[in-house]
């Protein structure tokens, strides 16, 4: 029997940032993703060590850390993209709305519908803009223009791209600028109505204006979605995220409110990294 992840009841509310100092009021938020003792291996090489994180619902969570620290690996565990890597193995538990993602009963296609992903380099299909967005819904069996049109419009609006492309929906997506292509990829991810959006360095190839648009988009999207973003740009993490996790050599060193991480981190290694004292 397949478990429909989206139909599971919500777990109880929890306090994020427990035991904080007297100056901080605890934020109450529902958990969306819960990771318990997650270890991950590429063959014999261990890439993640006992990671425990609770990703709150309807918030932006950022993972930061130097190259090779495991943050992208972890992101890819969240929609089982690593299943496609030869010799990759995960132990520990990852719960999405309380359901174990790695249970044999989970339909991976259904999971990737619920947990969408946007990559570092925009990767639109060499097809018209419209077809890029309609691609996922069509796979789900939605065929008629009457059904697809509103989905395409809503998704493009959601990605802040509608006004720029509404008159050229049938032109190739490859004619769009880099920033527009990246927003198109976000629209494509939104079209299947995910609850979680994973973003792996979504702005690293974009200019500051396009980056600003995507960052603004994150604020708008988090009302409906839970967003997990991996970024090398610490100022970006500071600007857009509610919580931040700092990774180092496969270990989660510190996870807390973004405000705390960037003003008064607890761990010296976090502080050294965000102040550029590393190495």
């Amino acid at each position: 029997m397949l478990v429909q992840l989206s139909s599971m009841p919500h777990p109880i509310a929890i306090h994020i940032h427990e035991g904080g100092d007297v100056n901080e009021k605890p934020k109450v938020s529902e958990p969306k993703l819960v990771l318990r003792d997650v270890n991950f291996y590429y063959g014999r090489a261990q890439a993640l060590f006992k990671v425990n994180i609770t990703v709150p619902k309807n918030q932006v969570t950022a993972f930061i850390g130097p190259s090779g620290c495991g943050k992208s690996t972890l992101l890819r565990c969240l929609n089982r993209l690593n299943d496609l890597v030869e010799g990759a193995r995960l132990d520990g538990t990852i719960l999405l709305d309380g359901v174990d993602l790695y249970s044999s009963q989970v339909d991976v296609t259904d999971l990737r519908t619920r947990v969408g992903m946007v990559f570092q380099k925009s990767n639109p299909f060499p097809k018209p803009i419209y077809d890029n967005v309609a691609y996922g819904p069509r796979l789900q069996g939605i065929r008629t223009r009457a059904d697809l049109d509103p989905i395409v419009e809503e998704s493009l609006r959601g990605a802040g791209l509608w006004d720029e492309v509404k008159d050229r929906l049938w032109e190739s997506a490859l004619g769009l600028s880099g920033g527009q292509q990246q927003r198109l990829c976000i629209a494509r991810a939104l079209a299947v109505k995910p609850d979680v959006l994973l973003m792996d360095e979504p702005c690293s190839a974009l200019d500051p204006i396009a980056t600003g648009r995507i960052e603004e988009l994150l604020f708008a999207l988090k009302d409906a979605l839970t967003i997990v973003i991996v970024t090398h740009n610490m100022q970006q993490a500071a600007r857009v995220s509610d919580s931040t996790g700092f990774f180092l050599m496969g270990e989660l060193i510190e996870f807390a409110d973004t405000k705390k991480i960037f003003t008064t981190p607890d761990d010296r290694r976090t502080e050294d990294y965000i102040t550029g004292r590393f190495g």
Partner: protein
Amino acid sequence: MHRHLDDELKSLKAKILRMGGLVEEQVQGALRALVERDADLARKIIDNDRLVNTLDVEVDEDALRLLALQQPAARDLRFITTAMKISTELERISDLAENICERAIELNEEPQLKPYIDIPRMANWALQMVKESLDAFVSGDSDLARRVCANDDFVDDLTHQLFRELLSFMLENPQTITRAIRITFIAKYLERIADHATNVAELVVYMVEGKIIRHTLGR
């Protein structure tokens, strides 16, 4: 790893120290002008306030530049924002030294009401607090900063004591009222100086520990 930012932070710290030294001299000078009834010195101190103001603006400009261009985080960020605020506190202390000199000049125009005993004591306490709060800033010593905060009550007590004494003068002889009020003002200025030193110390606790203890939060 060497960071260009470290050099910048060091020079910002040096500027705060220079300002602190200058401000201590202003308060000491104001006291001497009062006790020794030296109006020339008082005028010199009033004039020197410009130097402190210039440094205050420089610290602000340096700090703003670092915030805009270096995007500091964590302890760097706390250091820079603290430096900005400390500079404001020091500038206010210098203003109060200037106020003491203004009252001293006025008092010099009349015979001395009484020998100054409590005023120099208060001034020494206040100066000690200024000095120690700056020491705490330089060495990042939040324990010392907390001890400075604790001294504030003592200066407050001295102010009240002096006020009661001056009140008795005024009740006995209305001729003394103008002078007694001027001395009361001076006591109040010294008490304010101790308050500003306390603020500096509280800022140092934030800089070192990331804890806000101002307004009796989290003491």
